[in-house]
């Protein structure tokens, strides 16, 4: 496999400005280099941020930046999973449903209490969940066991998706659409659409716990104003970055990662070259589902509730949108975790600024849709530029 190119798969052209070229051509080369840069979306985000700061002073306040980061971490984890699937020219529509199901699974296992008035009609009532809480309530390491159960359930869903796509040659869109519907319905059935609260503090801290907090103002009184104490390093940040770094190494520094790109570029050619295509596809869908489960830990903990509807609504728009904006190609064969990181950053920044502009939820979704369309068009342009350079 050593002859395969490293990260990003498509060989990057060595762009040099030829001597004595007209200024217009030089500018064209620079634009081209910018468009093809790994950091294009980061530059875009910075430019967008700087352009809006004079009009939205709140944008650069520490409180708002803390919010931006806090909103970014769970989305990043899901988008990293989606990056793997898009890179093999697939799509995983079931990530949101996996989040809902795993959110219910962990809550019904580790909740410390549950109201009969709300949950008595749920099929899990009396066996897995009672007024005294979930099956694991009160036992040592309940949260860890609950999380392991979440990851196992997610892996099973991913395994099903992967096997259906790899072994039965079913289209990923159709397989994951069906999984999305079935898994979401199953999650709702488990609790009859009710939420499960009373999660242990050890679990909740994973979604909102600070490791390092900072206060930037003068210390005039003995008690610091809580509104001005900002989270600096949080558990969601650590978990999301750890997942992203692991995924980056897996995708860009291992033979498995090269197989992923090879499958995405040309499945048939990869098969002939000896790539274990079926195993790669199955593993990628398992990774995607496990990433959704990790994100579910963060969302469930920050909302302090197991919610069967978690990941519903327009959530998938955010995930696929952020991944595509980052530069991962919908056509497969092209993707990087760092691109997804920048894509999520831009997407969260976009949502934040649209909120600060006081636009309605409907307008915000319309703008997001437009930006995703632009990102898809940009993907086409970048792909053409790369081809023309080779």
């Amino acid at each position, binding site marked *: 496999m050593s002859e395969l190119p490293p990260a990003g798969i498509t060989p990057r052209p060595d762009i040099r400005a030829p001597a004595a070229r007209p200024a217009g051509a030089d500018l064209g080369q620079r634009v081209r280099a910018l468009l093809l840069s790994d950091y294009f979306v980061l530059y875009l985000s910075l430019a967008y941020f700087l352009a809006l700061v004079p009009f939205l002073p*709140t944008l650069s*306040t520490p*409180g*708002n930046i*803390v*919010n931006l980061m*806090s*909103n970014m971490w769970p989305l990043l984890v899901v988008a990293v999973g989606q990056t793997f699937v898009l890179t093999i020219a697939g799509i995983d529509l079931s990530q949101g449903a996996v989040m809902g199901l795993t959110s219910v699974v962990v809550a019904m296992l580790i909740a410390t209490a549950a*109201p009969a*008035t*709300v949950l008595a*009609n749920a099929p899990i009532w009396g066996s897995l969940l009672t007024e005294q809480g979930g099956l694991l309530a009160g036992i040592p390491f309940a949260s860890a066991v609950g999380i392991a159960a979440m990851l196992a359930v997610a892996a099973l869903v991913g395994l099903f998706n992967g096997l259906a796509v790899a072994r039965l040659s079913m289209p990923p869109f159709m397989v994951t659409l069906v999984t999305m519907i079935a898994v979401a319905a199953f999650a709702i059935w488990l609790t*009859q*659409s*009710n*939420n499960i*609260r009373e999660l242990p503090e050890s679990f909740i801290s994973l979604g909102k716990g600070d490791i390092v907090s900072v206060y930037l103002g003068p210390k005039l009184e003995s008690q610091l*104003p*809580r*509104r001005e104490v900002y989270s600096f390093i949080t558990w969601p940040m650590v978990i999301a970055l750890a997942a992203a770094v692991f995924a980056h190494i897996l995708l860009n520094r291992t033979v498995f990662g090269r197989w992923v790109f090879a499958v995405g570029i040309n499945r048939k050619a990869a098969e002939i070259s000896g790539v274990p295509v079926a195993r790669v596809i199955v593993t990628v869908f398992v990774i995607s589902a496990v990433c959704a489960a990790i994100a579910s830990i963060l*969302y469930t903990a*920050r*909302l*302090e*509730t197991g*919610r069967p509807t*978690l990941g*519903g*609504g*327009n*959530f998938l728009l955010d995930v696929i949108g952020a991944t595509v904006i980052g530069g991962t190609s919908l056509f497969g064969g092209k993707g990087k975790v760092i691109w997804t990181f920048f894509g999520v950053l831009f997407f969260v920044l976009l*949502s*934040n600024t649209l*909120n*600060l502009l*006081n636009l*309605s*939820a*409907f307008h915000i*979704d319309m703008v997001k849709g437009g930006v995703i369309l632009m990102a898809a068009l940009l993907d086409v342009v970048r792909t053409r530029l790369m081809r023309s350079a080779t």
Partner: protein
Amino acid sequence: MTRLQALAAGTILAGAAMTAGSASAATICFAFQDLETEFWVAGHGAITKTLKDAGHTVIERNANEDANRQLEQVRDCIAQGVDGIILIPQDGESATTIVAEAQDADTPIAVFNRPPSDLSKGIVVVADNATIAGQAVDSIVEKAIAAKPEGKLNAIIVVGDLGDPNAVGRKNGFYAAINKHADRFDVTEVASQWDAATALANLEAAVTANPKVDLLFTSSDFLFPTIRSVFEPRGLWKKTGEEGHVWMAGLDGDATACQLVKDGFVDATGVQDLYFEAEKSLEAILAAIDAGEAQPNEVIEDPGFALTTDNLGTREKDMWGCVLLSQGFLKNKS
């Protein structure tokens, strides 16, 4: 602003505006879960119009039925340094989390109508759903028994999303009334999850399984058009006095319910006093801001009442939906 919002805002009690004006100009974040029903639209209009008229700045946030999005929106509001928050949450659980988030940031918060599962935190303005539902169902139970003194009666309750404490209260109120004559009723529960399409599918299934219906209580008036679409083709949508009339009651007190009570299709509806609730929410949050109170905790209860065909003449003007109806709301809507 829609015509409905304008109408709703126009009818807000003058006292609310006076009260809202008593605080110095404040920036209020109004975070609501959606504007799906007449009740929420009217409540939204009443609150925003009153605050703006009193010189306050209102930052509106629509979560589009997404609890996580609402949490993020409230955090955005706190980062913007708002003086207070009025919240219509997605459900009781997320309300508890969001109230704690606001109080941790020393920002006063009031929850309008849909209470947190933990009532001890924040300003909570809520209707006594169990009592109001009980009053409405009591009235139709008595009439149904009088109309059929012998034998079993089939009753249906269209239940809301039981993650919402309002839905739980309404269900409890229904059973409190039914259980006074437990030996006379067979009850079928139809889940709606506060969603018209879900209610339609489940009600159709229930009525197909058992076409004989004597009494129905819907946990929200906004489902009456859905109920009509199921009942009418099956000959169950009849006026009082007509053969086959199903005794029906709802809860909210919206304009559609008022019209249906007047027409005789619906026999009673529990009324939440929207204007009272809006007034009290604003009064409490602005008083807390003026007093510099960062974590005000208070439960304000709307006693409500049941509008029935018997007291329609005397209490019609107290129901917000009838006020909207008299101003031509349903004509404007169509």
